[in-house]
């Protein structure tokens, strides 16, 4: 389109429109909803208890590592997008027969270098998250295990005998 609002202008209208609609909902809320704040209502939620300390708690540093790896891959993807539209362009291939092969080979080198990066991160163990381990609870019991086992054996045997008898009788 040569005149009027550009296509990016339409996007701007969408951005503004979305914000305006939220504004309308907010206005409706302001007109209709009650507003009686009190200190009890405004406390931070912590399952009904009084909040302990503030919310600046430690979190796992691996989230930061994930963010860093993402950044590299996202830049890679940005380079792939324009390339993807022209690497197999029929018109260019008619003029330059080896265009497609070269384009694919060059981009393969680029992607393989980044794959090596992923492999490095993988081998270094930065993709490993802390796994929960099953903990065997420690038992403090004066009764030796053999006594329990003996009781188990005794009653298991009897019940199986009863069952087989019941199965035979009818």
């Amino acid at each position, binding site marked *: 389109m040569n005149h009027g609002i550009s296509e990016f202008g339409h996007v701007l209208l969408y951005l503004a429109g979305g914000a305006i609609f939220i504004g309308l909902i907010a206005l*409706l*809320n302001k007109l209709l909803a009650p507003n009686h704040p009190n200190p009890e209502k*405004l406390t931070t939620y912590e399952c009904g208890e009084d909040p302990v300390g503030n919310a600046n708690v430690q979190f796992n540093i691996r989230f930061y590592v994930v963010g860093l790896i993402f950044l590299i891959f996202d830049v890679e993807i940005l380079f792939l997008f324009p390339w993807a*539209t022209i690497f*197999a362009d029929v018109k260019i291939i008619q003029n330059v027969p080896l265009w497609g092969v070269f384009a694919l080979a060059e981009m393969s080198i680029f992607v393989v270098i980044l794959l090596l990066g992923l492999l490095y991160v993988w081998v270094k163990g930065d993709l490993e998250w802390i796994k929960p381990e099953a903990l065997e609870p420690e038992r403090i019991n004066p009764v030796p295990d053999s006594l329990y086992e003996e009781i188990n054996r005794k009653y298991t045997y009897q019940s199986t005998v009863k069952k087989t008898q019941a199965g035979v009788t009818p």
Partner: protein
Amino acid sequence: MVLSSGILVLIQVAATFTFIALFTLWAVYAERKVSAWIQDRIGPMEVGPHGAFQTAADILKLILKESIIPAAAQPLLFIAAPIVIFVSVFAGYAALPVGPDIIASSFSVGVLYIIAIIAVDVIGLLSAGWGSSNKYALLGSVRAVAQMISYEIPTALIIIATVMMTGSLNLQVIALRQGIFSDVPVHLWGMMDITHVGGFLSWNIVRYPHLIPAFIIFFISTLAECNRAPFDLPEAESELVSGFHVEYSGYRFAVIFLAEYAKMLLVCLIGAILFFGGWNTPLPNIGSLSLAEWTSGTGTIAATLWGVCWLLLKGVLLILLQMWVRWTYPRLRMDQLTTLCWKYLIPGSILIFFLSGIIRLWEVGGL
């Protein structure tokens, strides 16, 4: 002319918002009913026939509620977060071809723009979690951000693979080249010319069978992008109460909810356009029985209606699939989540990327 094209877009903006609002009402109701049927319950039954007005009543209640900003929260971040979350998803609809002639903004970088604008969502989540000054909210938002940026990579790589097969970033062109109105010849498996047959045979996923695993990767990663179960760690009710939006109530909560369902619909529609022909009809022309020409077209109102209906049908079927998955699989653990993304989906999608390159070059005769 300036005025008329501007007014046309404004009408589209209003229509999009109305549609998203109505869709959310329907989707929340559908989600509750589907979950009920899967778990052998009956679901909401009180408000209206079979509980059909339940979600409308819920939304009304949320708007009438007092909007609470906790005393400890940082007001600017807290108030801005729902707006950023909603507007970023809403603006994604600008580049979506709803029908053969309806697209609000048909610039040549459509898909790239949608990926970029959806990524802004992450900033909203982070500001919601940080601005709430709540431990659950902070942990939930950090988890959400890590998850969404990780799964953005396989999503984008798969989108690039489909773009390579079509040769355009404009979603309207991608949809157009999967039907009888294609501007380039449509080949099935690189052999038969099926430009005039159309129907489901000309969809990307049928024409290029290597895109079937690509669609599975796309579907899994978009589930994670939308924070849907089994990837709902950021909202894990049993450990984080409800994650980054634990402090939100009233209309702000409703807006976040609206954005969540709008995003679900958006990724499902993008999936339908990239793999299942967008607004193209699934019915092929069989000899003199030209079903494809009867059930689609360009330029007329009837054709537009057919297009919109086909696209929405495909989108809604994908959403029902998302719901089915949600109520079937248990939640993943954090280490399983990162392992799945970085060690399975990303290498898999790079493999599909190389396959796409070779297959496409072979098809156009450049190899």
